[in-house]
């Protein structure tokens, strides 16, 4: 849609681009879906709009009511944009170790940031938000990790767009955060053709988060469990910061300036391409590179960048 009455009408319908020039296997094509083209700059615009509009419809969100959400960045930014347009005050519980640009964008859109300890990662932000939600029953707590409107945005939006633009898809590769993208897109694609393989990519987050007291502080998003995630996914691989940074640099060769989690996703797609022939792999790029300029990902010596990346949450 080229013209819209509201910026919210520009969310979704993102383009897909063939990046097979970077594939390690000439018989495995790779296409990248550029979610950074959303108006708030990331894939999370989709779930921000979906969660807010669902809450408006079911009455859990009334005009002027305060919205609360834990986010390592992109969901917060998407919500900040949507809430600004719709007039809801927004509080984001943000781990202290995210890139400075994420914090700046939240501030630009007028969200209030509540800081959670970096050593506890996103788990700590989730716990703090849950506590705040109990203390403030008048706030609307959207809870992206357990909100069916999150995977539904992908089941009804991202999935059908991929099917429309790439009906010969054999593999879908995406990052695993809340699991909303993989659960929603994955279920849609498997219903269309159950031979389509789902590959989840994740950062070694469990190594970075060292503030856990015991394994029982671990966390599995309810939407992953409710969607039967363990049965839906076909493979799950860890991509380390070094490989992620190498791939955001390779993407520059085909003119794509993407965020660090896109590098991880491309690394996963390349690993997939090495193992299968006659494949059409669609990988999802969650955001553009803008929010990561301060990490020096493209310009500084790679070992320094990797050390920096180990200390921030970029998924």
């Amino acid at each position, binding site marked *: 849609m080229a013209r819209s009455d509201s910026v919210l009408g520009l969310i979704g319908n993102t383009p897909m681009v063939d990046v097979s020039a970077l594939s390690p296997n000439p018989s495995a094509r790779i296409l990248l879906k550029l979610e950074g083209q959303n108006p708030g700059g990331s894939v999370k615009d989709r779930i921000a709009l979906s969660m807010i509009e669902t809450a408006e419809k079911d009455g859990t969100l009334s005009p002027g009511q305060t919205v609360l959400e834990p*986010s*390592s960045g*992109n*969901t917060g930014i998407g919500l900040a944009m949507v809430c600004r347009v719709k007039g809801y005050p927004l509080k984001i519980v943000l781990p202290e170790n995210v890139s400075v640009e994420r914090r700046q964008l939240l501030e630009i859109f007028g969200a209030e940031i509540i800081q959670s300890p970096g050593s506890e*990662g*996103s*788990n700590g*932000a*989730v716990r703090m938000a849950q506590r705040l939600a109990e203390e403030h029953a008048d706030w609307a707590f959207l809870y*992206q*990790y357990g909100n069916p409107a999150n995977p539904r945005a992908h089941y009804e939006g991202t999935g059908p767009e991929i099917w429309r633009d790439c009906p010969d898809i054999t593999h879908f590769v995406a*990052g*695993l*955060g*809340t699991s*909303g993208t993989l659960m929603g897109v994955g279920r849609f694609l498997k219903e269309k053709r159950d031979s389509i393989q789902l590959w*989840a990519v*994740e*950062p*070694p*987050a*469990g*190594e970075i*988060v*060292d503030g*856990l*007291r*015991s*394994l*029982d*502080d*671990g*966390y*599995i*998003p309810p939407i992953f469990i409710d969607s039967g995630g*363990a049965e839906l*996914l*076909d*493979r*799950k*691989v*860890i*991509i*380390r910061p070094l490989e992620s940074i190498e791939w955001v640099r390779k993407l520059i060769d085909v003119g794509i300036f993407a965020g660090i989690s896109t590098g991880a996703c491309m690394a996963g797609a390349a690993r997939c391409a090495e193992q299968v022939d006659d494949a059409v792999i669609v990988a999802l790029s969650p955001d553009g590179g803008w929010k990561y300029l301060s990490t020096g990902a493209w310009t500084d010596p790679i070992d320094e960048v990797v050390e920096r990346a180990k200390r921030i*949450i970029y*998924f």
Partner: protein
Amino acid sequence: MAVEIRLPTVLRQHAGGQASIKANGATLGEALQDLTRQFPLLKDQVITEDGTLHKFVNVYKNDEDVRYLDKLDTKVDDGDTISILPAVAGG
């Protein structure tokens, strides 16, 4: 088969503070049994009483989650790296 098992910070207290342990076995299950033979305190942390992987633990063979390979029956080879990591949130 000798593999290297990497422990997360939260489990190292049960393994004399070590981050990395050598263990033997032809499958992941056997290697983990050898690990808990060396460090009995790790037993209930990784494998539950009914012999499955602890819910909040992800185990990777060379960075691939074994839940999507053959779980505890996943074959391991000399030099493989097994990483045990706590399940954490993204987003």
